[in-house]
């Protein structure tokens, strides 16, 4: 039954209503007033974030748990993601004000962003595989459309088709995985699935492993894990940059929420030697992302590869979750940070594209003087992505690598994860530095300052404050991330 006091339900209903109503309003109204729909979406999302924050502060949220009897859990874990995802939603929305100006179908655009945001939020709240799957699809389907939203732009369409094909395949794989899990345990509620997994007879184990493998593939596609990453650079490059922001900062992170709920828990329950497999994937992923980014000439594409790299970092936290107390907290913290950093970077790119119509890195010469605030935002987000102190990216990477080293006490390979991560961070400086060099140290053809869109400036200022603020005084957010960590000890109760 619907529990109308539960945070996720309220979010779903209110935001869903707004999301559905916006196109209706648009159909009813004759004149096209782009900023109205954006404004509504912004207001709705802001209200939602305020509501979640209120729920957290007023302690109407359960402590972070993995399980509940229903399909949704009103817990800290979900709320943490809700805040992160809604921030991304807001940044995308605001960042799109300028981008969507004069483009067709703004109402649908904002409505789809809202609907997709609901999907992302609900994934984190889900405690049932069916719910998870449905939320997953709610997140995905609008983004297929959004990625191909520039109907006259062939690359946008190509990006959308590639994205869609992968998305469809992966939802098939996820359902396959769910079906196996259901078949083995007779339930779709994660608690019971896990319980069932942990009492599995040995001859059924291969099936459970197969299920976990399929979950990894299915969710890993969104996350951008190698070898399920191939669509990602193409799509991020071709899609409108604001939507790339949503994909990189939002859907990707929601994928981690799903992965955490399903893969990690399932694997732990199965007592698999799974973490090494994840660790291998993590290392391959981060190396692939950072290495391939080096020679990129398109800003969005470079950021896309960088986000593959970051998926690898975050996966470190997941893969050593059983061995280190702060592994998951670190991953969560990095998810939040990366969401903001990547969103800021992509929105800066959107700003650059809309005002100057350039996305080639060699053409960024002298940008630092042409668009100072956007450039500053981009630089700071790039440095934060690289993990340069004192910016927020530094702290979460610190925790990630720290947890890996910490886990070295239990598993001997864990420290090498940190080594790989650290080397990759250093490697990533090569291409981030490249962009910075182009923007600031090279003379452009024109040095005249151009007018920067106000909405982009707003996003930039917000993200600069966010990144530097956390960088200087990270403690509250570290605590927040820690509070959102599900207690893995509850698993032992099942055993």
């Amino acid at each position, binding site marked *: 039954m619907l529990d109308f006091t539960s945070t996720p339900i309220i979010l779903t209903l209110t935001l869903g209503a707004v999301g559905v109503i916006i196109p209706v309003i648009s159909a009813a109204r004759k004149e096209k007033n782009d900023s109205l729909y954006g404004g509504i979406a912004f207001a709705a999302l802001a209200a939602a974030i305020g509501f979640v924050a209120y729920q957290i502060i007023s302690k109407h949220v359960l402590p972070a748990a993995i399980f509940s009897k229903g399909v949704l859990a009103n817990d800290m874990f979900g709320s943490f993601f809700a805040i992160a995802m809604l921030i991304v939603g807001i940044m995308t929305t605001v960042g799109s004000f300028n981008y969507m100006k004069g483009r067709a179908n703004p109402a649908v655009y904002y409505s789809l962003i809202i609907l997709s945001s609901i999907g992302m939020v609900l994934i984190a709240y889900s405690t049932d595989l069916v719910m998870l799957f449905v939320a997953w699809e709610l997140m995905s389907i609008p983004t297929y459309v959004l990625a191909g939203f520039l109907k006259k732009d062939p690359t946008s369409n190509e990006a959308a088709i590639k994205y869609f094909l992968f998305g469809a395949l992966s939802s098939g794989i996820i359902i396959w995985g769910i079906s196996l899990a259901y078949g083995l345990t007779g339930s779709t509620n994660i608690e019971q699935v896990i319980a069932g997994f942990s009492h599995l007879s040995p001859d059924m184990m291969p099936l459970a492993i197969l299920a976990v493998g399929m979950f990894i593939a299915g969710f890993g596609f969104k996350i951008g894990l190698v070898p399920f990453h191939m669509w990602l650079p193409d799509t991020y490059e071709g899609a409108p940059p604001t939507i790339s922001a949503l994909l990189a900062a939002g859907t990707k992170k929601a994928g981690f929420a799903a992965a955490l709920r399903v893969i990690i828990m399932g694997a732990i329950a199965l007592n698999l030697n799974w973490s090494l497999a994840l660790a291998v994937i993590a290392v391959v992923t981060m190396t692939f992302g950072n290495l391939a980014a080096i020679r990129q000439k398109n800003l969005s594409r470079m950021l896309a590869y960088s986000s593959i790299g970051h998926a690898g970092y975050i996966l470190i936290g997941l893969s050593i979750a059983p061995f280190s107390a702060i592994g998951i907290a670190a991953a969560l913290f990095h998810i939040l940070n990366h969401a903001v950093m990547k969103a800021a970077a992509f929105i800066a790119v959107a700003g650059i594209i809309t005002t100057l119509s350039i996305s080639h890195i060699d053409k960024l010469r002298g940008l630092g003087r042409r668009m100072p605030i956007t450039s500053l935002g981009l630089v700071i987000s790039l440095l934060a992505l690289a993990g340069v102190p004192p910016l927020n990216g530094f702290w979460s990477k610190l925790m990630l690598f720290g947890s890996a080293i910490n886990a070295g006490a239990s598993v001997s390979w864990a420290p090498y994860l940190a080594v790989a991560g650290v080397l990759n961070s250093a490697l990533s400086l090569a291409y981030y530095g490249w962009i910075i060099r182009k923007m600031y*140290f090279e003379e452009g053809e024109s040095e005249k300052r151009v007018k920067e869109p106000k909405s982009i400036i707003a996003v930039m200022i917000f993200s600069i404050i966010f990144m530097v603020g956390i960088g200087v005084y990270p403690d509250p957010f570290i605590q927040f991330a820690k509070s959102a960590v599900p207690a893995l000890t509850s698993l032992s109760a099942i055993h």
Partner: protein
Amino acid sequence: MQYVLLQAIFLPLLLSPVAYLLGKRLGPNAATWFTFGILAYCTAIMTLASVSGTYEEHYPWTHQFGEFGLVLDGLASPFAIIIYVISTVVALFSKPYMVAKFTAQYEEKMSAQKQVVGDGPTAMVESSSLKTYVNSQIGIYFALYLVMAMGMLGSVLATNLIEFYVFFEVMLIPGFFIIALWGYEAKRRVALLFFFWTHVGAVILLLGFLAIGLNVGSFNYADIHEHAIPHRILALAAVGIIVGLGVKMAAFVVHIWLPHTYRAAPTPLNALSSGAMLGVGAYGFFRLLIMLLPGEYGHFALFLNLWGVATMIYGGIMALVQDDIKKFFAYSSISQMGYVLFGIGTASTLGLSGSEMLFVSHSLGKVILFLMVGAIILQVGTRSITKMGGLAGKMPITATCAMIGVLTIVGIPPTSGFMAEWTMFNGALQTAIQDGSTVRMVSFALGLIATVITMAYSLWMIKRVFLGKLPEHLEKTKEASWYVTGPMMVLAGFTIVIGIYPDIFFNKIIPFMKGLVGV
């Protein structure tokens, strides 16, 4: 006194925008003296604070990673004082050097534009736009300069591993920008090289920190006890710290970034880097390895000692064959850091004290020499040693100070270099005898031989630059301005005063090291 160290660290950071604005509005003089004033003030309050013994400040920071503390004890205060003294005097030197550099860059830019546009604007316009260009550049320069000084001091005063790391990284960024903006030749590539290498070093260091801090449960120095860390982790942590700091100190094998960087960087940055930044690496060995992990230090001491010997000999040999004077001093710095490393590996009170002292004296000497390089570049306009000669007659003050600098580097009394070297070598020998270790004996002997190499390359450099026949094209050379010679003379005075009365620093260092080795 309260908030002294907080002031000393954050005043430069907070006032760096002011320096930028001053430079932009009022020009180089204002920015220079403003920077000088801030740093001089900070140096003064810090020195006063250090006189009365150990001085500490603690502020809450994060739960996960510990407090934000600042400490000025027997180990930190010589490093801290010398770093700020160097920063203060190099600020003065920066003015003539950087203005000349900006002007040259401006002219280059203009001539490049002229080729495109055709005839350029009139000379009047050019001079006024040159002025604005120089003003804006000097503003940026001093803003970066202040941040760099703050980063170096911060790492020395930190009481927390993460805090150390943060400052450690912060000082790289201004360095990167200064090289990339106002360097020579392949400046951008080298800037990236510099940043990349030192960053890799720093993150390796970070791995070591994490290994320690997470196992102990706190990153504060005060809470870290070696026995709380599992053995396997401990060794890894120690290796991480050693490699990370080794990169910073440009020890042999991982030194390769340094010659490139020094060749491409503007000279004030060379001075600052050699005189202060490398020292942070040395400081790290004391604070992070010897103090926090004494047991591991015991295991690695001999290795460090030998590493130091290899570095000092290798750097010296490489310096012998350099023609570019900046590269020459780059290798010389590598060699000097080898000495410091050698001292760090001695595992005895006198050796460690000597090593710290050696860094102080290296700072003084090498900064004098880099100021000399700056003076030569300004006055002569070449960096090739073979194109110089006989400059002593034309630049007597520079030559005299350079000689004192060389003596400091070589370790000839009555300069501070000797005081450092004899204590250090003495300590090395004591350990060798106590352990009855032949390897240490040999390393001691090789260390002494390295001093001869140092002497050979330094004197040869002096001979080729200042002595001998004056080439015809240098007939018109003049003595450098007071902005250059003044700081040189101050530092030269320092090194002699310390050389004659080393207790200025020794009475802080030695009791501290006694406590350290006693543990």
